[in-house]
Every structure is written in C-alpha cells, then in structure tokens.
C-alpha cells in the first residue's frame, strides 16, 4: 500500500500542499449541521461497532424463538496491514471460538497473536456482561478488518526523488454469537436430481393460450 512517486519532487510537494489548503478551507466555511448532504449524523464519530453492544431489545414474547446472545468487540489502530489481517479474519469466519483460538495460536503471523487476544477478551465479555452461559458455546459470526489512520513518512529514492510511505494501521472487528456454528447444509445427489427435474417441470411457454 506504500505510495511511490517517481515524478519531479517539487511539483508534487506543491500539489500536496494545495490539497491540504483546500480541505482546511472547506472545514472552516461549512458548519456540520448545514452540510446534511455530506453525512446524515451531525457528529463525525464512526466508532459504531462498540455502540452495537449497547443496543437493548424489548423482552421476548413466550412464543418467539430464543434470540441468541451476541457480543461485538473490536481493536483499533493495530500496527499491521489490513490486507494481511483479512486472511486471518477470513480463516476464522464461521468457526467455533475454541477452534478459532486454537488455529490462531499455531499461526505464525503477527496479526494472529493480536486476534487471539481480541477473541479471548470478547469471550470474557460475553460470559461476564452479555448473559452467555458457557464460554465454549460461542461461534464467530462476523470477522473482518478495515483500514486505520495511516501515518505518512518520506521514502528516499535515488536521484533526489522521494515517495511518501504509509505506516499502515488496521482495525479488527469480531462478532461472537451464542450457539454452535451454523453448518452449511449438505445437498445429497438425490436432492439435486429432484430439484433439476422440478425445474424442468416448472418451465412454461410465455404468451401461450
């Protein structure tokens, strides 16, 4: 993700300065409430994942199916790449928490250690504050990474050229849900054959009598 500029350094610096000047001008002129076409909420806070834990549902009726307990947890500004974190997040999607922690423990990547800490924290939160009875009865429903705020540094090239290097940071989000992990349904050959025959039977001629 590191940007490498090979053009002439001075012109680039001028352009970059122009960009920063423009953005500061915009922020000074417009009040957040007036610019409703930019974003609907008046505040600029985007820490919404933490707020998901504060949502309170109305009490369930006796005939409703039991809503499984959920816990949302995240870690912000991890010094790691979001693309590399994605591979780990993809691996543990849909696993039970014990399986996920075991896989991450024996993975050699830097993000695996951090992700394991986040999962264990979330498991503890679930048992302590989110009314989960058994700490092993959790599975990873959602798990993904996103870009954090990058720091920019100068990378020196030959011949007086330079590029701006990004010091990458990422966020990691996980949602644990109570219950065994949902198994993808296995379709037998007979089911597939039956479906195929049904599709053939459902064919109809349009604009016919």
């Amino acid at each position, binding site marked *: 993700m590191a940007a490498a500029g090979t053009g002439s350094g001075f012109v680039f610096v001028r352009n970059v300065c122009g960009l920063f000047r423009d953005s500061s001008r915009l922020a000074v002129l417009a009040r957040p409430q007036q610019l409703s076409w930019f974003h609907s909420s008046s505040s600029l806070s985007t820490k919404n994942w933490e707020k998901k834990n504060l949502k309170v549902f109305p009490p369930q009726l006796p005939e409703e199916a039991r809503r499984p307990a959920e816990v949302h947890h995240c870690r912000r500004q991890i010094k790691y790449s979001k693309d590399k974190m994605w591979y780990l997040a*993809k*691996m543990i999607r849909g696993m039970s928490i014990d399986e996920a922690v075991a896989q991450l423990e024996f993975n050699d990547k830097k993000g695996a250690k951090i992700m394991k800490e986040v999962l264990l924290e979330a498991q503890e939160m679930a048992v302590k504050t989110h009314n989960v009875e058994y700490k092993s009865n959790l599975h990873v429903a959602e798990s993904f990474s996103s870009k954090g705020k990058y720091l920019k540094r100068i990378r020196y090239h030959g011949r007086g050229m330079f590029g701006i290097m990004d010091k990458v940071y990422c966020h990691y989000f996980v949602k644990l849900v109570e219950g065994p992990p949902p198994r993808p349904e296995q379709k037998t050959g007979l089911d597939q054959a039956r479906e195929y025959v049904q599709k053939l039977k459902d064919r109809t001629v349009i604009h016919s009598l």
Partner: protein
Amino acid sequence: MSPPAMPTKEKTTAPALAVNGLSLPPPQLHPKIQLEEEQENQEHPSGLLDSIMWMAAPKKRRTIEINRTRRRAESKLIKVKNNIEPCLECGHLKQKHVLCGFCYAKVSRETGLIRQQINAMEGGPLRTPTVETVVLYEGETPSTQDKDKRIVERPRKRPAWFSY
C-alpha cells in the same frame, strides 16, 4: 476504369523484395551508414530514463475485481491446521509433532534455576569438575549410584515431572 499504365521497364537498382506491401523502406545503396542514421533518429534521447523501446510497462490499470480474484485465490488463503491436540500432561494445546509449549517452558525454567545454582557453586568460567552431576531436592540423600558425583542441591520439593 482503365487499369493504370504499367511501365514497360521495371528495372530497380537494388534486388526487388518478393513480399508486397512491406512497410520497411527498400534496401538502398550504402545500407550500413543509412541504417545507423535511421536508428539514431528513431531512438530519441538515448538514455536510461526515456528509452520507450525496451522497458515493459503495464498497459492498463488492473481492476479491483481482477486484483481480488488473484489475492483471494484458494492457494493464497491460510490453510486450516488439523494437527492440533491437547497436551495430556497440562491440557494446553500442542501440535502433534512438537513439544507442548507450556510443559517445555516449565522444564526450562527449572533447568535455568539449576544452572544458576551450578554457576554459583563453580564461581567462574571453565571450572567444571570432571565428574558427573546429580540434582537433589529437599529431603533427599545421595544413593549408592551417586557416590562419586557432584551434588547440586535445590531447596524445593522435587517436581512431579522430574523422575529419579
């Protein structure tokens, strides 16, 4: 339309080429000098920066869809390990072909303390006696086998995993 009048004498100074419609100019007299001049004209400022003739460069930007299919291919995803099992001694997880990390740390901590004791006994480098060493814990007396051995005392109970 009458066909254009063909010249009666088709005599060229240089040998005619068999292929019609060739884009290259026909070979001329004194070919070597003229070829060099043409090459110079075609290759613009001859320098490493602007030689457009021989540096490979991408023609088009790779779209995010193409990039994703390459990055998320099955071979690039992390494979799930199926050789993880619990250690029978301590219950922590271990890989089948690797020693349990917790048990190894526990043993290496104790060996570190034994080594510290030995260093204290020897007092300096290169003073290892030429006899065997035996480690004894609290309340243990040297047996007949340990007659000529150097004894290292550890002021604690013998750990369960350290057999005689």
